[in-house]
């Protein structure tokens, strides 16, 4: 469904350190800087995250109602993702990382962060059997 997500940053090198830490917690991914614009690409599962300065050269501004969900393979990996983000300049938001019950027989693991520019992120893992 999604090809890529672009998030705005007012300090691209700060963002680079933050997202490198997040992706390292997920096992590491390929990243490169755009030759033409001040923005970084990370590629995972043929999808791109791009973090850079807004094209209108204005200030990057988080939107209320915007959240990006990242795939994690386990609650343990989600916890590592969250801890890495906090250590690299992110902010803890919402409830603490953990499994939210969804009726009988299932749940969803969620962990939330804001990146250093205020963009809202989460890590998600559906827990079908053992939640």
């Amino acid at each position, binding site marked *: *469904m999604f090809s890529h997500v672009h998030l705005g940053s007012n300090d691209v090198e700060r963002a680079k350190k933050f997202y490198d830490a997040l992706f390292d917690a997920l096992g590491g991914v390929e990243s490169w800087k755009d030759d033409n*614009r001040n923005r970084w690409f990370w590629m995972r*599962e043929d999808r791109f995250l791009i973090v850079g300065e807004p094209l209108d050269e*204005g200030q990057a501004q988080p939107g209320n109602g915007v959240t990006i969900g990242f*795939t994690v393979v386990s609650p343990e990996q989600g916890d590592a993702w969250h801890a890495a983000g906090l250590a690299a300049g992110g902010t803890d938001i919402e409830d603490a990382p953990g499994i939210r019950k969804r009726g009988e027989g299932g749940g969803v693991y969620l962990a939330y962060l804001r990146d250093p520019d205020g963009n809202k992120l989460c890590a998600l893992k559906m827990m079908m059997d053992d939640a």
Partner: protein
Amino acid sequence: MFTHSYLGTNDVEKARTFYDATMNVLGYQGIETPIGSVYPSEGATLVVAKPANGEPHTVSNGHTLGFSAADYDAVDTWHKTGLENGGTSDGDPGFRPNSPGNMYGAYLRDPDGNKICVFTPNTGPR
């Protein structure tokens, strides 16, 4: 990479009209929820709804959500369908030299001002 993306709206009906039409072009069907719509797929889910904190939706500067399209025709149809359903153009269909592999894409603003685009790999001249 991505499990889901949540886009805020301040007008659920307008957003539903726009996303039902444009996501259908890409092969996805909407499911209504009390505060918006979700568009699930095997790989990921789009959520278009009122912000969960009860505050008004605001547009993010710097945020763009990109969707995958099957081919050039799907990109063109998506853009045209968006314009017919309350969207505004933020870039006509065409090749984008700054994208990896000079992909073919198009840009829209949804009725709430969220910036979205579709891209398909470059398979030769249009």
